[in-house]
């Protein structure tokens, strides 16, 4: 039996059902994980932290969720090589958990922004969208109030040099430093983006470019 993709829900996660469905649309099995759960990494092909407002985004987006028990298991899973994807609030949680470099702060507009963006793939990730070429374009929607990527200058340089920049915006919507829309961890097991690939799975949604992010998980058994 092929392994399923673990979808992690926190109180306040609201893209959980969407991601679950997107994983299924990509022909894979999905399974719920709750913020209080501890789990065995090898049971899962991959893990996804969906978007939303975990713990209401209170304090800082992702701050409270990052301190949940389930994150201990996510940390172990990442260490053992399980691919982990964070989307939007999932990205924020992974940064707050120090599983990804940098931080996401309030949009320069100081407002929530819902819009379609064009992205460039800088370095393809080995699991999520593994067959994307560097330089490829993606059209995905964003919907966030705290999506402005920040890291120190030295850290930014390191990210570029070590191939950890995943996606950049073609037109910067939120003031992200160096247009960064998605990054990877040092060992590249953990990856995250602010846009929502699960909202771009069918032409009627406005784009199908999100499919590839989930679809390529097929090659992991």
């Amino acid at each position: 039996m092929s392994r399923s993709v673990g979808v992690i829900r926190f109180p306040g996660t609201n893209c959980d059902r969407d991601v679950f469905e997107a994983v299924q649309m990509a022909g894979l099995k999905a399974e719920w994980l709750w913020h209080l759960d501890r789990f065995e990494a090898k049971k899962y092909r991959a893990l996804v932290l969906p978007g939303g407002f975990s713990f209401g985004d209170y304090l800082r987006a992702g701050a409270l969720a990052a301190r949940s028990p389930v994150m201990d298991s996510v940390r172990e899973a990442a260490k053992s090589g399980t691919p982990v994807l964070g989307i939007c609030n999932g990205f924020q949680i992974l940064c707050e958990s120090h599983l990804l470099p940098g931080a996401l702060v309030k949009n320069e507009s100081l407002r929530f922004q819902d819009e379609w963006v064009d992205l460039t793939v800088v370095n393809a990730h080995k699991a999520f969208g593994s067959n994307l070429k560097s330089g490829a374009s993606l059209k995905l929607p964003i919907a966030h109030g705290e999506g402005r990527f920040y890291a120190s200058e030295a850290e930014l340089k390191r990210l570029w040099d070590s191939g950890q920049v995943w996606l950049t915006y073609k037109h910067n919507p939120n003031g992200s430093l160096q247009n960064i829309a998605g990054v990877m961890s040092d060992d590249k097991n953990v990856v995250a983006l602010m846009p929502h690939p699960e909202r771009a799975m069918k032409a009627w949604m406005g784009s199908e470019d999100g499919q590839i992010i989930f679809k390529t998980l097929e090659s992991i058994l």
Partner: protein
Amino acid sequence: MSGIIRVGVKVMPREVILDTQGRAVEHLLKQKQMHVSHCRVGRFVELEFATESEKAALEQAKVIAETVLHNPLIETFELIPMTNGR
């Protein structure tokens, strides 16, 4: 050297009003066995004035706090002189 005076403005939710952030933070802290009995979350604004007079700075800070920084229906504020501020 011309003087700089800093004044802090602490803005907190009014006591009778629900503090949604405080409630969520308190809940999580309790769940993590960190023993707080209550928690409230507000804002802190640091204002810097190019003046020598602390009195003048406080007066200006008060006007700013009253008219711009706080919403009297749901918040209260307090001025905090920050003589040794960094």
